């Protein structure tokens, strides 16, 4: 097959109706949640008191908060104001990409496990373990090398350490599931708490940076951190890391769709009995998938340490949980994870801009995030909407009117 043929193939698969529909639906969901969010902003704005001079006026009524400003800041702000002329790669856009990069890895971690039929809630814990291991490992190794050579050696080394330890931590629920039949939802939630607890113990004790009041390890030397390329160093973002992320997206997609191992994973995910029949070793696949998933989580941790903080510090943000949302929004599809991670990166980074630029309580963005997810999750709603609302009544109406216990059940009822 020629390259052109292949490209055509790919394009034709992308242009399928369902793909277009998914994009349309996601857009509609975004728009709808923005509308509802705007109403929320207005209502909240009515409940707050402000001076007349600060109010904005819509429909002849004054509101303390301006929804247009909120959404302008949320989206355009996160992108570094591309239309204002003064766009620079050093601005908020870099923060957005930084968040996106981390979410790509946690999203992939969750996606891989989900595709294998494993509900890995433990990416957060795997991230914490990977981050801590990376910090300690790189610290140790940074006494051996330095300078540019140090960067070239230590970054892959740090990622490797993060992947290995995250992977090992992911293997625990894997082994428990495969060989002790222990439900991974329970074990991974528990392991999250354990990872946080043990990390706190270690970095408030033996591995604590004596110079700092924070519970953190000694900071990594500059050369052991991701170098800023094109983008300014201040936003703690490195294009190199994003490139790694994109590489990982492609690699996982290839792994799942074009390799025998991926086929094994997907088969076990949707129908374990059939997988077993097809010669898939169920136990090994469970352990391997969770290990790999943990490794991706661990890499996210390594990136957090080597790109964002430059040290391991307790209180790691919940990238692991956000990864669940990212993955599900993406339909657990590695390529979709890229887009979902960008959307979430925008929301996370935009939140800080909104906070800075408006008086709206920052929790509002959290609500918006929930609404977007909710609407994206209900494509059926938009399909009905598109069809002009005829069949909409069936489900929801009965809920609204007779939500209680069905009373007309059995024949012997009356």
């Amino acid at each position, binding site marked *: 097959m020629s390259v052109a043929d292949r490209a055509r193939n790919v394009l034709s698969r992308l242009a399928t109706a369902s793909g277009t529909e998914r994009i349309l639906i996601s857009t509609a969901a975004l728009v709808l949640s923005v509308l509802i969010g705007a109403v929320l902003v207005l209502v*909240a704005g009515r*409940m*707050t008191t402000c001076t007349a001079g600060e109010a904005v006026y819509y429909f002849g009524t004054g509101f303390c908060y301006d929804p247009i400003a909120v959404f302008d800041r949320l989206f355009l702000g996160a992108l570094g104001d591309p239309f204002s002329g003064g766009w620079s790669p050093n601005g908020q856009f870099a923060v957005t990409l930084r968040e996106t990069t981390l979410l790509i890895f946690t999203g992939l971690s969750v996606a891989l496990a989900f595709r294998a039929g494993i509900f890995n*809630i433990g990416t957060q814990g795997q991230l914490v373990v990977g981050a801590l291991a990376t910090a300690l490992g790189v610290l140790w190794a940074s006494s051996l090398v330095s300078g540019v050579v140090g960067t070239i050696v230590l970054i892959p080394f740090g990622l490797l350490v993060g992947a290995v330890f995250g992977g090992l931590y992911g293997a625990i629920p894997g082994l*428990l599931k495969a060989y*002790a*039949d*222990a*439900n991974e*939802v*329970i*074990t991974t*939630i*528990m*392991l999250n*708490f*354990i990872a946080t*607890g*043990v990390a*706190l*113990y270690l970095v*408030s*004790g033996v591995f604590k940076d004596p110079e700092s009041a924070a519970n953190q390890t000694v900071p990594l030397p500059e050369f052991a951190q991701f170098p800023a390329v094109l983008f300014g160093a201040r936003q703690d973002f490195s294009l190199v890391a994003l490139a790694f992320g994109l590489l990982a997206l492609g690699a996982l997609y290839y792994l799942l769709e074009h390799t025998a191992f991926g086929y094994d994973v997907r088969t076990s995910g949707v129908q374990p009995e059939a997988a077993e029949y097809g010669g898939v070793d169920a136990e090994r696949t469970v352990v391997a998938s969770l290990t790999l998933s943990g490794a991706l989580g661990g890499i996210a941790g390594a990136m957090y340490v080597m790109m964002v903080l430059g040290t391991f510090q307790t209180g790691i943000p919940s990238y692991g949980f956000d990864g*669940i*949302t990212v993955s*599900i*929004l993406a339909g657990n599809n590695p390529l979709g994870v890229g887009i979902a991670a960008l959307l979430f990166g925008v929301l996370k980074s935009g939140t800080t801009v909104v906070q800075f630029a408006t008086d709206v*309580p920052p*929790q*509002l*963005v*959290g*609500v*918006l*995030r*929930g*609404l977007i*997810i*909710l609407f*994206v*999750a*209900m*494509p*059926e*709603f938009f399909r*009905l909407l598109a069809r002009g609302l005829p069949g909409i009544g*069936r*489900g*929801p109406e*009965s*809920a*609204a009117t*007779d*939500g*209680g*216990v*069905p009373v007309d*059940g*059995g024949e012997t009822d009356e």
Partner: protein
Amino acid sequence: MERYSTRALVAAVTVVGIVALLLAGLAFPDSIAGTLADALTSRFTLASALRLSVPIAFAALGGIFAEKSGVINIGLEGLLIISAFSAIYVADITGGVWVGYAGGVVASTLLAALFAVVTIGFRADQIIAGLAVWLIALGLAPFASQVFYGSPNSPTVATTGSISVPVLADIPFFGALFSASPSVYMLFVAVAGSWYVFERTAFGRWIRASGENPKALDTAGVSVTRVRYAAVLISGVLAGMGGAALSLDLGQFTGNGPTMVNGKGFIAIVAYLFGNYNPVGTFFSTMLFAGLDALQTVLQTQGIGVPRQLIRITPFVVVILVLALVGRTRLPEAAGEHYETEE
């Protein structure tokens, strides 16, 4: 069968272990065993475990209803949060603690209704919708608090207080069961009631059938949709009771960070999985967890020489260990799947 015998074995080993510990504690009161034995036999530990159980167990019972009917409600955390705030808010504006309690339950039920419409009516993915419910509540409750009170934390309102049953409350150890907050008694009623619904009523069977084989229920002429709506709404009511109990017991809503609910909704999921969807089993698994948490607090306070950060994680470690021994929990066959009557 194998499963039950393992369970029995684990139970037996646990009992033997506890007895040995108590004996060791008697023999050497100053050792760690002595401290542990003291804590284990203290009515204060039991009382503490009960208090800690309330929100978790209510939410877990709610989770059972939803999941048994085939709708995985991962948004329990959100229901707890919204109820915890609403209860305080309503109690604050009306001045009535129990009015506030009802307000919390209503708020949680409304959010559950939204979840139901979205997942059952519009066939949204249950997991995403559940996460969305959590995120919405996690934003909305502190946001509302900020708007109403100018702070994510509410002011203090009256609490539900506690009720002591005369005589019974004086029984050693178990007396703690009879000198507790009203929510604890309501929890007992809810556990028994849930058990009754599942084991004895037609509706309980429909819920089970709707989660195991909705088509069987449908072809038997019962509307799966309505059963699922009802079950999800019940989960909203129960989680609402848990959230309201949590905040009204303290008389305040705390909305910073993960809010005062702080993951209890997720622990609830663990609890009902661990309790194998049985209300009574779930109650005991909640008590196991809360008991370990209470014990952890006591041990930390008494300073037994193990770093505090590590003592704090014992409940989580124990759950994993027990699970590794007891093994699998079985999800309802159709949990997480949409059901549609054909045509």
